[in-house]
């Protein structure tokens, strides 16, 4: 049963809907939807994905069952491999994983909403969605296809995904499950999953001349033929196939190859039948002694037998079989001529070839691994240099000292991602898949700049205090968000502290009040050149006033008074004109040797300690 439907921005349509006539319609609708896609709070998007994740983790989930039933017929993957792939999909969608990824690539969730304040840089940084993202993937690994879509969604774009001809099913099932957990349509209604035959000029000429970002995963040749056809307004994110390899330092394999390394390597070779760009083609053993490589191939053979039972290969096509046959026959002749060794079962479950020639070799995949020996790092780098432009992942098993030198060398060479053996084909949670930080490319970084003098910062702070009902009203009464209005705001004492916060802040447990500094944050600091209790005011962080203890008028000269603090950053629990209960007075320091040029005050103790008797202090 092959799928015959597609989704186009909230509508379920027949799979052949897209044609020359409807391509413009698709694009126009995508522009409209891109505005809606940018609106929701990132939290809401993550919440929906978290529910999708939970659903797909359940083996009984109906759409998962459907995928397990259909996908082995469409792909060369066994049912077991499909199950593992679906677990990966579930794990990618979890809130924890997506949050980690967003933090690592975008820096914060806030950047995707209102923007992330960068007070010390005088701007607010915003990750602006690019608008419409068109994903074209020719790859066989269905997880990567939906991962590309997910990346587009969590960066709040409207996405058009072109399904690969071989698997026109999984993306549809995946969007269907998003629909299930997104009754308001904040995500799924802004996505289109379509199908057309690659090379269909009538459709592609329309889409390739739209205003969009094109994420392309495919061969160099396809990419080269595509490029000249792209319109001026297309931003291309190109991902051509790359080659990955593993490196094991000989001494890590002595006296015996560690079980976790051998198993890890077997899994990296077997997952996705080696068809991911992060799957190793070659494993290099760094050792003077060739025996170590022989030990590895023997240990790996046993483990591959085991993993092949857990994750069977699935069906091989005629052509794939021919490719494996070629590798085996050449290896057999090498073995005869003492130039290598072939270790494999009779069936084409997997093929291990130890070649004495260390030159990098591209595998025909489908669990065909070359094992090669090099004597040192320099030798290895020399072997990898010819393909340095096409390297992706390096899986390492080396001693710590070695790893440090090695990382440097490999990145210099062009490697995009270094990980441990066993982690090559399975990204760590939240890490960019395949070593590519795609989220950063799916947004445009924009900034709202502002002046940094204290008056401007106070005015901006007031504008941001809408979430506190207490201040909202006070600001209105004071006449707006200007600095002059600020000076009309009442002082804040400890008793009214709780009233100022927005309701959600009260849910946060344990807010100690015992220390003034905890309430307000930093108020003053002492450098090595100022005596006694004199403090410099960190003006980028807070605004300090000294007021008369009698009539609360603002003191400009050196008369002692109560120190009043406004924190320029706190928004959730604003600290506006907070009476610290500390006594202080302004001190004029012409030029502090530390270089500070702002205001300084002398801390005189607590207000309660002051006895005022006429003019005697």
């Amino acid at each position, binding site marked *: 049963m092959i799928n015959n439907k597609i989704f186009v921005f909230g509508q379920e349509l027949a799979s052949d809907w897209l044609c020359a006539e409807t391509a413009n319609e698709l694009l126009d609708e995508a522009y409209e939807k891109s505005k809606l896609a940018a609106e929701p709070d990132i939290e809401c998007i993550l919440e929906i994905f978290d529910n999708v994740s939970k659903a797909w983790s359940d083996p009984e989930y109906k759409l998962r069952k459907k995928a397990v039933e259909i996908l082995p017929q469409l792909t060369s993957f066994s049912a077991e491999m499909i199950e593992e792939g679906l677990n990966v999909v579930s794990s990618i969608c979890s809130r924890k994983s997506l949050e980690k990824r967003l933090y690592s690539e975008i820096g914060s969730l806030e950047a995707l909403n209102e923007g992330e304040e960068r007070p010390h840089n005088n701007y607010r940084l915003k990750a602006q969605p690019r608008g419409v993202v068109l994903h074209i993937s020719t790859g066989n690994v269905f997880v990567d296809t939906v991962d590309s879509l997910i990346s587009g969604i969590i960066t709040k774009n409207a996405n058009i995904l072109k399904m690969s001809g071989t698997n026109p099913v999984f993306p549809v099932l995946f969007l269907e499950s998003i629909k299930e957990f997104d009754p308001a349509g904040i995500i799924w209604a802004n996505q289109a999953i379509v199908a057309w035959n690659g090379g269909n000029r009538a459709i592609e000429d329309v889409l390739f001349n739209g205003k969009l970002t094109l994420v392309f995963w495919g061969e160099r040749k396809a990419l080269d033929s595509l490029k000249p056809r792209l319109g001026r307004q297309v931003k291309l994110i190109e991902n051509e196939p790359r080659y990955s390899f593993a490196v094991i330092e000989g001494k890590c394999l002595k006296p015996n190859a560690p079980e976790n390394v051998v198993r890890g390597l077997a899994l990296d070779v077997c997952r996705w039948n080696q068809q991911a760009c992060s799957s190793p083609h070659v494993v290099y053993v760094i050792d003077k002694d060739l025996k170590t490589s022989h030990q590895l191939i023997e240990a790996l053979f046993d483990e591959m037998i085991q993993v092949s039972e857990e994750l069977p290969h699935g069906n091989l096509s005629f052509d794939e*079989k021919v490719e494996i046959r070629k590798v085996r026959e050449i290896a057999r002749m090498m*073995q005869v001529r003492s130039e290598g060794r072939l270790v494999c079962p009779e069936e*084409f479950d997997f093929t291990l070839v130890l070649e004495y020639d260390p030159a990098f070799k591209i595998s025909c995949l489908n669990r065909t691994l070359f094992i090669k020996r090099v004597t040192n790092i320099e030798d290895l780098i020399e072997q990898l240099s010819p393909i340095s432009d096409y390297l992706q992942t390096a899986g390492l098993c080396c001693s710590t000292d070695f790893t440090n030198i090695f990382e440097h060398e490999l990145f210099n060479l062009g490697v995009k991602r270094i990980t441990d053996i066993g982690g090559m084909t399975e990204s760590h949670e939240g890490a960019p898949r395949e070593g590519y930080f795609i989220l950063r490319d799916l947004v445009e970084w924009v900034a709202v700049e502002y002046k940094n003098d204290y008056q401007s910062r106070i005015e901006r702070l007031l504008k941001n205090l809408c979430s506190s009902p207490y201040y909202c009203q006070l600001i209105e009464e004071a006449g707006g968000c200007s600095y002059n209005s600020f000076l009309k705001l009442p002082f804040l004492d400890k008793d009214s502290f709780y009233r100022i916060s927005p309701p959600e802040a009260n849910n946060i447990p344990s807010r100690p009040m015992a220390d003034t500094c905890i309430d307000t944050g930093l108020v003053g600091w002492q450098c090595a050149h100022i005596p006694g209790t004199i403090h410099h005011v960190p003006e980028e962080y807070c605004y300090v006033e000294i007021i008369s203890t009698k009539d609360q008028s603002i003191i400009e000269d050196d008369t002692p008074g109560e120190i009043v603090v406004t924190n320029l950053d706190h928004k959730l629990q604003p600290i506006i004109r907070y009476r610290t209960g500390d006594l202080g007075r302004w001190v004029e320091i012409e030029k502090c040797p530390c270089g500070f040029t702002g205001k300084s005050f002398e801390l005189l103790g607590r207000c309660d300690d002051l006895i005022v008797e006429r003019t005697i202090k």
Partner: protein
Amino acid sequence: MAEGKPFIKCGQLFDHTDAFEYTPETEQLFVDAMNEALRWHANHCPDYKAFLAENGLADLKQKYSPEQIPPLLVSIFKEFKLASVPDKQVKIELTSSETGGRKSAIILDARSYKRILKIVENIFGSLGLVDHKQKVNYLCFTYDPKYAVNVGTAFSYKLLTDLTAHRSVYYAIRFDKKTGEFNFDAEAAAKKLIDFSTHPEPVRILGFPAYLWQVCDWLEKNNMDLKLGKKSFIITGGGWKIHKDLEVTKDIFKDRVNKILGIPHENVRDLFGMVEHGIPYVDCECGRLHVPIYARAMCVDPETLFQVEDGEEGLLYLMTPYISSYPSISLLTTDKAVIEDNCPCGRPGKTFRIIGRAGMAKHKGCAINALELLK
């Protein structure tokens, strides 16, 4: 052409001039000849002997059926130089015309060279394509052998021009002395053909079909239909390769050349061969590639190497005992094919149809390189 020890049976087999004389005697001769060749190569090529042992064939005194001899994959000859004769006995060394990577080097000793000349003569003769008294004008869509001395395709077509007497031979892939490159000029080839049509001698056109297609394009554009006649032949080879977009079925091809060149359908023949194997498989009048008695063809599953049923697609596996200079007597090709029998032409034996090149990687053989010259 009787041969002495150790090739008595080989000699007897090649002495059968009817290439399709399938009798119990010729079948037995083929088996015996294969065993002679097996022992020869095992004794003269240490790598081959080790390969046989690796595949469980160590006892060379025993007699084997040809199918029991483990095949060498054709790619092996691109990776390794295997020889069963010393260098001084090499009469001719043929390479595939590919430019990059390792060259496929095939060596022929005097014995193999002599045999292949005879085999070619026998096969084409049995198909009615040999007439040494008839002078013919040749148009060859192949490299000029004067300049492409060791290129396998040029060698093959040189053999084909010797099937008749010639009035003239024109090689359409010309060597440009200034640039040192080979170039194909469709217009010059078309004009040559027009010139041929004004002479009484028949014409034979040999080589890659895509080139002839281009020549037909030129003639059609210039509203020229030629009448080359019933005695003229077209023998195509090498396939369409990178010009898959131009590829048409044999019937369409025959219709077009019949219309534009005036050559009858049954005189358009395709040829399949490979430098590592040497035997030419040639279309009969009915358009089927016939297996001669000097060879055996079957199709196998690429994983198990078990023979598939006739009519089913498999990897083409070819056997012949004639080559004594390198051990390719049992060869696993990378071509997908179907074996058939009962050809309507009435000739006994099997025929096969090539489905295409098998495998995922891009192969760059002679045919592709020559086709890249197409403008």
